[in-house]
């Protein structure tokens, strides 16, 4: 078995995969991609690996996968013996997929705001922050109801790929000028996630909880 991750340390999407690999205790080889300022992900060499020109990419025994959410599902499907990260029961599978798509969709506005503020990406920053705030509110509303039930995680009584996929860009949103003042349930959820055994931080997220 050999796993290779095409990785950039500051990418929240790559961080999703690093977290999953860490939680599952999997060894992997890291291929450093010069995302900024080199834009290596847009070079012909990298486009041959991922024609979308995006990070991360995972190679697992010859299987080449792009899209952080797809990679999380692949890793959980193949390597999580307990099946807790990717629940298969009919009551959980759908909701977990729903929030997973939300992580790769609506929540990515927070990533855009971060790229603007940190790496001077030319985009409408106010629109990005507004979209991110709308998405955060949807998540905070959901987690508020989970709190009423005494729940901590997005679905069920343990963290799933949905929590994992939503975590990075919510936790890193301050980098894009989006604070957590208006999202008390999100704050509590982030803190619990950071306390998970096997959790490790990345730049922009504190090691101390």
């Amino acid at each position: 078995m050999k796993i290779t991750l095409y990785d950039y340390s500051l990418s929240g999407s790559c961080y999703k995969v690093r977290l999953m690999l860490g939680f599952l205790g999997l060894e992997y080889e890291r291929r450093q991609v010069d995302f900024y300022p080199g834009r290596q992900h847009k070079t012909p060499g990298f486009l041959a690996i991922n024609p979308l020109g995006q990070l991360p990419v995972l190679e697992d025994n010859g299987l080449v996968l792009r899209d952080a959410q797809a990679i999380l599902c692949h890793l959980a499907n193949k390597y999580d013996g307990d099946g807790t990260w990717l629940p298969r029961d009919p009551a959980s599978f759908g909701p977990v997929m729903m929030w997973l798509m939300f992580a790769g969709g609506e929540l990515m506005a927070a990533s855009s705001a971060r790229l603007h503020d940190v790496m001077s990406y030319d985009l409408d920053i106010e629109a990005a922050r507004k979209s991110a705030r709308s998405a955060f509110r949807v998540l905070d509303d959901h987690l508020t109801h989970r709190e009423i039930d005494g729940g901590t995680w997005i679905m069920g009584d343990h963290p799933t790929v949905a929590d994992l996929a939503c975590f990075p860009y919510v936790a890193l949103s301050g980098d894009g000028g989006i604070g957590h003042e208006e999202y008390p349930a999100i704050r509590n959820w982030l803190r619990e996630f950071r306390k998970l055994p096997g959790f490790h931080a990345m730049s922009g997220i504190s090691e101390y909880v």
Partner: protein
Amino acid sequence: MTATTDPVARNEWIAAGWLGQIAPGASHDTMILGQPIRITRTGEDSYRISEIGEDGSEGRELPIQTRYTCIFTTLGDPTRPLPEIHEFDEADRVVVGCGNVGVNTSPYRLVENFLDMAHFSFIHVDTLGATDKTEVLAYRTEHRKDVDEIWAVDCTFFQPAASKAVKGGQMTRYLYRVMSPFSVMLYKNISEDSDRNDAICVFIQPLTETRCLAYMPMAIVDNENTAADIADFQQSIFLQDRVILENQRPALLPLDPTYELPTRADASSIAFRRWLKAMDIRFGIYEKQAA
């Protein structure tokens, strides 16, 4: 904001771009000290910088120097030259630029963070600092009047992984050097040979009083890692600091020593603030409102 009228700030050289940022023939609009400027790459190695007027037209042309992977300019008549950093001339070093990184705070908060060792154990856990070795040993600061620079010497700190090239923990020796209000660097003694110190700079482009771009050129002794690996390490460190920088209140730097309370570990910050006060710089400084 409009362009600052502060003559002290205007008379400094300021980084405004990095080599490779602009394609030949293209131009890039940015800002220094509140003044919009346009950088045009007129040839492979030649640039023109002009102020941009309120009507969007190019006005006064500004001086240019390209060094240390950056493009420097000034709004005034610089009283000091660009610093000499001979490590960048040594052919066997890896010189890395890292582009620039945006930070929403005043330029001096960046300088102070760069001078600070006491945060290593909290912000750079397992690389520049260990959670159980937090002590900052005494070091000395000097105002070198011949070059009008602030130095911190005899600095040491225990580091679990001092650079991309180092395996295992060590007491790392540092020399810090503040060359201007907007530029700072360190010499980091990784190997036994003190002539082979890593040189790491931060040149700051103040867009406004509370918005900056940071350039981090480095001249590193490393035969193993690629420039991309070294840049990744440095960017990772810098984004750990960036969270701190954007969450200091106020963003402007207070010079009143009773408003923010230092200890011995802050000797370099104390020297830096005194130096700023003595040069009477106003741009980016916090003037506490009368009670």
